[in-house]
């Protein structure tokens, strides 16, 4: 295939990627957008296969077949609750593949004397970004899957050590960039980058995972871009940059949702001091209710807002919430869901979990859209959420001061479904639980909501 045709096909692919991402911006067109992007990918791959003088089809064809089978199997079997892990795995694989491509180019060029300076520079960068993405994603996966402790892992002089590591990496990259085709130096660079990826993610706590996943998503794109620079291939540069931008936007949104800077998330080891919380307020009275009383309250109200948190997903109670919604709506009650941006373990995770349980997306409301409505809401049902509804965020002296919260304390009645009074991830007590209008419905979210469904069915 003539190379002008290849370039035209790549340009078409790039345009389709941009258009596909644009269509992903609305629920009505998102599926088409994804289909468009996958078509663009297919086009780019087919054109490349047709253009290259492929010596051995077996290795390439076999590799693609194996990858496609594995990818399809993962995509079909993964539970929606495990979506953050899966995206973590995919981030790591994409970044890792880019690093491997760069390494292959290094060993190809290293055979022939000194490396040209531009090649050496891009190879070093691509290896660095790709490898950090790979090992960082592996740790993120381990944390999300519970293989590695979800709490921050810290050691003395951690940040200083990481900085030293980073500077050594830049030094090595600089050495390689002078054209030195030293395999030892190259492998050391890859090894140190691997270590850096691990060290950058271990001090980050489980609840900060939305930020980490977003950031690694961005890195996987930048790694592809860097590989594009290595090979002088613009479709890689463009597609990688698009993904890099997407990841950065999501990272920024997640940080804003927790009122923390990226630096604070990355280096603050948030959640380590979590043990101090309970104890002091154990004696404060709370109002405890059961299923029957809650069913009466809900059944005779005019409007209900559910605030689902990660605890709901852990208890697998999404379907019970939907049943509850159906019953309440059948009684003519307005039902809405208030979704905090960090309600799940990755951006938008809770929306996917509720969509899986057949909750229509037009019932889901973002923080800014629902907050003004709480003072006109009869009952708020908080299920498995804690810090995101803690009024302490309005108190400048609090550990979560300034974090955007759902203003549920402004509703007429609040029911909190929770196992105990234990503090949330931030490790601070929640005044909401002790307010006069708040009723604590203690129990496992799935059982509690199941009981509520039963009681509601019996109501008149």
């Amino acid at each position: 295939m003539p190379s002008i045709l290849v370039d035209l096909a790549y340009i078409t692919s790039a345009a389709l990627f941009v258009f596909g991402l644009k269509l992903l911006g609305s629920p009505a067109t998102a599926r088409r957008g994804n289909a468009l992007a996958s078509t663009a990918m297919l086009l780019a791959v087919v054109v490349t296969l047709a253009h290259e003088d492929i010596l051995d089809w077996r290795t390439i064809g076999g590799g693609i077949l194996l990858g496609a089978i594995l990818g399809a199997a993962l995509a079909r079997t993964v539970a929606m609750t495990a979506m953050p892990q899966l995206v973590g795995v995919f981030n790591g694989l994409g970044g890792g593949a880019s690093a491997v491509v760069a390494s292959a180019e290094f060993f190809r060029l290293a055979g022939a004397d000194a490396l040209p300076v531009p090649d050496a520079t891009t190879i070093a960068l691509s290896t660095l970004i790709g490898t950090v993405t790979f090992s960082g994603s592996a740790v993120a996966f381990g944390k999300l899957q519970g293989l590695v402790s979800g709490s921050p892992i810290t050691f003395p002089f951690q940040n200083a050590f990481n900085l030293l590591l980073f500077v050594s990496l830049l030094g090595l990259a600089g050495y390689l960039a002078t054209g030195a085709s030293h395999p030892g130096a190259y492998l050391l660079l890859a090894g140190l980058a691997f270590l850096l990826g691990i060290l950058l993610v271990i001090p980050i706590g489980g609840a900060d995972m939305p930020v980490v996943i977003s950031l690694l998503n961005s890195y996987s794109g930048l790694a592809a871009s860097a590989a594009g620079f290595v090979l002088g291939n613009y479709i890689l540069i463009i597609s990688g940059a698009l993904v890099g931008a997407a990841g950065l936007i999501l990272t920024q949104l997640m940080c804003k949702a927790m009122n923390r800077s990226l630096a604070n998330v990355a280096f603050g080891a948030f959640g380590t001091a979590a043990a101090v919380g309970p104890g002091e307020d154990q004696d404060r009275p709370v109002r405890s209710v059961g299923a029957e009383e809650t069913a009466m309250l809900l059944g005779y109200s005019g409007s209900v807002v559910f605030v689902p948190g990660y605890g709901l997903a852990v208890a697998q109670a999404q379907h019970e919430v939907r049943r509850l919604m159906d019953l309440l709506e059948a009684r003519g009650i307005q039902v809405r869901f208030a979704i905090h941006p960090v309600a799940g373990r990755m951006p938008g995770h809770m929306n996917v979990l509720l969509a899986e349980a057949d909750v229509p997306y037009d019932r889901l409301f973002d923080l800014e859209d629902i907050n003004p409505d709480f003072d006109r809401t009869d009952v708020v049902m908080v299920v498995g959420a804690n810090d995101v509804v803690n009024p302490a965020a309005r108190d400048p002296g609090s550990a979560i001061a300034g974090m955007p919260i759902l203003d549920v304390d402004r509703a007429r009645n609040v029911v909190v479904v929770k196992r105990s009074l234990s503090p949330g991830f931030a490790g601070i007590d929640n005044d909401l639980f002790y307010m006069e209008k708040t009723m604590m419905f203690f129990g496992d979210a799935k059982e509690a909501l199941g009981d509520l469904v039963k009681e509601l069915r019996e109501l008149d």
Partner: protein
Amino acid sequence: MGELIVGLYVFVLAMLAGFEVITKVPPTLHTPLMSGANAISGITLIGAVMISARAETPLITILGVVAIVMATVNVVGGFLVTDRMLKMFKRR
């Protein structure tokens, strides 16, 4: 003008296009957006095919196949799981 500089122009403009297009995605779709974008980052599959096709030593052949498998899992899995999620988003 060097190839590297042209590449940088392309990179910066593509980043800006990305920011422009993606800023408007509503929070409800953030997870599918991320997994869809993630699949696009598997574009490195093209690089893996290029180095595999040109491989002259066993080492590069092996690296090429490893990169192809990793990138294909990313691409195929990413697009399929995004579609699986988007299928669930319904209005009533």
